[in-house]
């Protein structure tokens, strides 16, 4: 690198100011990118911004949609934040989401009539258990066979989606459904209650708030959370202290899998109301970004989920009003993480001024 360029110099300790500022910088950069993109597409930048970020939430219904999409993102990302803290790279939340929808949906379709009033809690627990079961596979493979959970958890996403497709084309298909790949609608008693009339967000919002609180207690106050954090930050120190790595892997995978499973069943027993082949616009993958942008902190994750949910809504609005494809959301999601990671450089490094040239 030429001498006159400022070089990176490692900070003695990571900057806590930059740690908090990086997500804000990333959000700012994504807004600027959106402005540039609208200008490049010959759209008025400000009306583009309004369409993308303001108009979707300018009504009570819009706010409901905002919460509705933030809920599965936050549920998945809260679980993932616990796993990522422990250096457990569960990237298959999308599959655990699907598994939770399948097990919870199975209860809703075939067991609930016999359960009476216990139907909803059993259905929700079945969803959590399904997600945990799906996450237990990579956990077992990692602890027993040393297999990277990154690849195994991802492969299981495809397997879960194919399993759901098989059920929707076969045994669980609605016989009166004109051959659509979907189940019959869940009984009304099993659909989660709405937060308020005139919008679609459900009581899953309260479950999210509860999970955020529980996550905070776990990471801030519990010994188990502390052991996982040490294992993530300093694996050698954790080994020396006798903290079991296998335990961290199991806890991280089961918690993140269970949370994703809950998100899955809350989605099919909420806005969707039945099982069908397509139940998620990539919530489980977007939740990875949410966890990072939220700095793996419960409150940050909830805020980041709201930001990400806005990107989804903005993508839909851009499709309806500006004629842009909704997949624009995917580009913005990827860019958001790029910007965050790039801004994070300054958490660990600072710019060293080039040395002033002195005459010899």
């Amino acid at each position, binding site marked *: 690198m030429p001498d006159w360029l400022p070089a990176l110099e490692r900070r003695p300790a990571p900057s806590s100011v930059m740690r908090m500022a990086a997500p804000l910088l990333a959000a700012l950069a994504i807004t600027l990118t959106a402005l540039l993109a609208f200008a490049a597409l010959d759209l008025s930048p400000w009306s583009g911004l309004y369409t993308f970020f303001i108009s979707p939430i300018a009504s009570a219904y819009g706010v409901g949609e905002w919460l509705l999409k933030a809920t599965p993102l936050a549920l998945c990302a809260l679980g993932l934040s616990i796993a990522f803290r422990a250096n457990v790279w569960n990237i298959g939340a999308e599959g655990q989401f699907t598994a939770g929808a399948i097990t919870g949906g199975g209860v809703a379709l075939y067991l609930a009539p016999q359960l009476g009033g216990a139907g909803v809690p059993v259905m929700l627990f079945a969803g959590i258990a399904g997600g945990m079961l799906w996450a237990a596979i990579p956990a077992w*493979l990692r602890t027993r066979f040393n297999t990277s959970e990154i*690849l195994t958890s991802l*492969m299981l996403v495809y397997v879960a989606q194919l399993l759901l497709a098989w059920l929707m*084309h076969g045994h669980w298909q609605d016989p009166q459904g004109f051959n659509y790949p979907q189940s019959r609608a869940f009984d009304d008693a099993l659909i989660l209650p709405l937060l308020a009339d005139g919008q679609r967000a459900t009581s899953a919002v309260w479950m999210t708030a509860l999970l955020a609180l529980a996550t905070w207690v776990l990471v801030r106050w519990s010994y188990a959370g502390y052991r996982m954090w040490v294992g993530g930050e300093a694996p050698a120190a954790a080994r020396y202290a006798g903290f079991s790595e296998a335990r961290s892997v199991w806890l991280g995978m089961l918690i993140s899998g269970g949370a994703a499973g809950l998100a899955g069943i809350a989605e099919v027993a909420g806005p969707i109301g039945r099982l069908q082949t397509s139940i998620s616009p990539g919530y489980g993958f977007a939740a990875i970004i949410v966890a990072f942008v939220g700095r793996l902190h419960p409150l940050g994750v909830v805020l980041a989920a709201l930001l990400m949910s806005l990107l989804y809504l903005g993508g839909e609005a851009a499709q309806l009003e500006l004629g842009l494809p909704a997949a*624009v959301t995917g580009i913005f999601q990827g860019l958001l*993480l*790029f910007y965050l990671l*790039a801004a994070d450089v300054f958490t660990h490094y600072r710019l060293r001024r080039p040395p002033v040239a002195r005459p010899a």
Partner: protein
Amino acid sequence: MSGSYVIALISATVIAATPLVFAAVGELVAERAGVLNLGVEGMMLVGALAAFIVSTHSGSLLLGFAAGAGAGLALALLFALLTLTLQTNQVATGLALTLFGSGLSAVLGRPYAGHPGATMPVLFHFDAAVYLALAMVPFTAWVLNRTRVGLLIRAVGESPQTAHALGKAVQSLRYGAVGFGGLLSGLGGAYLSMAVTPMWVEGLTAGRGWIALALVVFSIWKPWRVLLGAWLFGGMTVLQLHAQALGLPVPGEFMSMLPYLATILVLVLICRNPRLLRLNQPASLGRPFHAEH
């Protein structure tokens, strides 16, 4: 089963394996230099789309391949800029690259969705790209094991500190290895959208980038074993398409699960032996390197 049917199955296997050979050999070189790029899926998708668009408009498959390779290279250099120059976490950046590539290809590919593409001219059953992929395997093995630049790549992957102390340009070598990986991932994607399934649909790669990553582990970072693994997976893809013809009483969805389940199985078989991994995995894989002086 007639002989010609068996030959058709085998040639279909080799064709289905070709994108995996390209992508896995490219990723193998990047990993030998110590850089783990989880963005293979994203690079393949963007490469596939770029190749499809250019070959459709120009009518030239050669230009299509060049576009695919160029698109893969561009994304890989973005990854290199972030992870090597800006020292970001390789796992997170690779994931971001895959998400970004999926979104980008979905948006830009919308007008082309469902169009049929051009078809390749064939030579002894196969087109030139199959031979190119086959040639990449001995070529990479030769470069890595028999040449000076290969020795440097391996040195940088094992101990960047040592290589740096000896005055070797760690960053440049890593940039080159990551770029080579992107180039080949782009070629793999291009072959997919121009030959294997000559069309464009959103998410065309269906996890092949991730399977390529698993193949690198399966190969224990040796190019020849990549070929073996890719043929295994190619065979599975073909088996899944021909299950009906072979009269297998298994639902289609379960046949489609095969490559993913096989990936897990293959990873387990390799990773259960810690000695095998310790001996063969590049020692600095996934670890950032920042020269202080």
